[in-house]
């Protein structure tokens, strides 16, 4: 990675955020492109073709969702959202609109960098498809539709498997309730979050060492679930 420093576009209207994010990303080995509002962000996105984007949803000139939708029209790379904890719906909407993940303000730099790494790695994985995902003693074969835990085949119902596959494809990023429900149960069931609770519970029973303290399928309260492989 030393030859090619991944380029990250940071779109935020707060100078104080740029002030530490710039040096931190630089020290972490990224090339930083700075934009102070939505319009500048979209311009830089088109001109510099960054490898990833960090986007603050609270921009002065346009709604964060609007900026996201416009970006997604021509940009396919990972987009990380900066949002406040109390802006629950804003965050979920952004994820549903195609943001890859989010970090809540205020955040430590380590958290942001970890999320950024996951998002970037996931893109690489998708390009060079890896059909078998390993996580501890779990082995999930996305082509053969087979799950093996500690050498034993785990029996999953078709819905359980679909849900797990969808979570695993997230590659460590959060997948929203809406995305999971639409993919597994169909668009008519986007409100039926209770289904998810039941099926995630069943999956944890079958896959987690301690289903009461899950380490593979993590809950993001009010937002969705995240599959963690390391």
């Amino acid at each position, binding site marked *: 990675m030393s030859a090619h420093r991944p380029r990250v576009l940071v779109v935020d*209207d*707060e100078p*104080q*955020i740029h002030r530490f994010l710039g*040096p*931190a990303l630089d020290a*972490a080995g990224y090339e930083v492109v700075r934009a102070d509002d939505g319009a500048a962000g979209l311009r830089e996105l088109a001109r510099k073709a960054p490898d990833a984007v960090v986007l603050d949803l609270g921009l002065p000139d346009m709604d964060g969702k609007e900026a996201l939708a416009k970006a997604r029209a021509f940009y396919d790379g990972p987009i990380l959202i900066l949002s406040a904890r109390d802006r629950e719906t804003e965050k979920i909407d952004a994820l549903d609109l195609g943001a890859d993940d989010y970090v809540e*303000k205020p*955040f430590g*730099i380590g958290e942001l960098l970890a999320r950024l790494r996951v998002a970037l790695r996931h893109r690489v994985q998708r390009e060079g498809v890896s059909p078998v995902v390993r996580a501890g003693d779990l082995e999930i074969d996305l082509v053969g539709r087979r799950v093996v835990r500690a050498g034993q085949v785990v029996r999953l119902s078709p819905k359980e498997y679909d849900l797990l596959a969808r979570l695993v494809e997230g590659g460590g990023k959060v997948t929203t309730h809406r995305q999971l429900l639409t993919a597994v149960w169909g668009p008519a069931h986007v409100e039926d979050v209770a289904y998810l609770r039941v099926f995630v519970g069943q999956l944890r029973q079958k896959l987690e060492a301690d289903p009461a303290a899950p380490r593979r399928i993590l809950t993001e309260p009010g937002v969705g679930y995240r599959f963690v492989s390391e």
Partner: protein
Amino acid sequence: MPTPVRLLQTAADRRRPGARAIGGYVAALALVALATAAARALEPVLDGGNLAMVFQVAVLVSAVGFGLGPALLAALAAAVVYNFAFLSPRYSFEIGHPADLLTFSMFFAVALATGWLAGRVRDNARVSARQADTVGALLEASRTLSAAATPDQAAQALAAQATAAAGAITIVLLPAEDGLRIAGGPTGLEKLSPDGAAAARRVWESGETSDAETGWTFRALQGLRERVGVVGLRGLAPDAEGRVSALLEQGAVALERAQLASAAAENEALRRADQLRSALLNSISHDFRTPLSSVLGSATTLLEFGTDLKPAVRRDLLESIAEDARRLNRYVGELLDMGRLEAGALRPRRSWTDAREVLNAAVERLGERLGRRKIVRDFARDLSKVRTDPVLLEQALLNILDNAAAYAPEGSRIEIAAHEDLANVLITIEDEGPGIPADALDRVFDKFRRLQAPSDRGEGLGLGLSIARGFIEAMGGRIAVASPVADGRGSRFLIALPKAVPTAKELL
């Protein structure tokens, strides 16, 4: 209050209708006697037909004066007397002449007709007058009742009106935490006897009227939506019943309205407190999070990459942390100030203060937030001292200066002045910022009101000016703003602090 007096008089009139009626009949007979005497005296100059006219006058006067009954009596008496004393044969009830029979019959018919008609007119007029009286009294009562702003005022007004209308002692009881309390009635009547209280309580619970066993007749006051209270009457005349009922109905509605209004006022106060709380939370979540993000982000960056960073970058991150910590401290101060103002816990500690010194101290505290903006002073050489709280005044002035610095461009002038007129020390702070739109002038002191983002973004909760006004007013001063000041730009804040003359002792 003219109305209760009138009501009292009418009530007194109505209390002795029998005596009045008998008086009318007696007077009618007296009039006939008078007419007889007059006819006797006029007999030498008038003939029989014209003498009859004298009696007709008596009948007419009785009718107009005392109504239908006395008029008919007068007609009868006049006919008898006329026949007896003036128709031949005289001093006999016989009628000798056939023509006289006709005269007598016509006389009696005319007397009856006149008496009946005039009596009817009079009675109608009396009924109308009484109705007008009742309506007038009710209107007046309704006006007094609806002017009542609180349930207690309504209760007092109702008790006064009902006492006047009924001639009975009236008390109004309203529900309280432990049963009923007397909210309106004659002064000095603070408490009912245990029996009376129990009777009132039963009426409150059942809604039925009590008997007068305890000396009081209690009735429920039924509003449009629910029972609102109980009224107690003592010594109510039976014929005042209808009038009092109408009044009590009205009173119940007025009481209900007052209760609803006071509940609404309470709700409004709660709603405003709620609004402030949510504005506060909103502000905390938004305005606190940015500096917090910056502090946390910079600190973790230093922890993570400290040795990899260039010394200049390290220093910049540390400065950024210090700046934002200061900013947060200022926000916390603002919130505390606002909280003190809202809670009414502000106790100015007044001492004799030189406004110029406080202005200078505020400029000093503004420090680097002033940037390259220039402070221009225009102070009176001699300035009266004011008795005020220098700490609060300094904070108020600092908030205004801070506002000026946030909006005025770098390099512009901020003029501070201190002068006095006969009654006040006047402080003005004038900036060359963009000014305040006319339609927003009266809102600049509102809480969390930021008309536009300041030029140095992210500064302030929108509480500064609101706090400034709160402090100034707590010290008995006034604050106003004018904008634009010149060339469609700039704003001028004017503060007037009332002067007081210090005693020699206080100055030493």
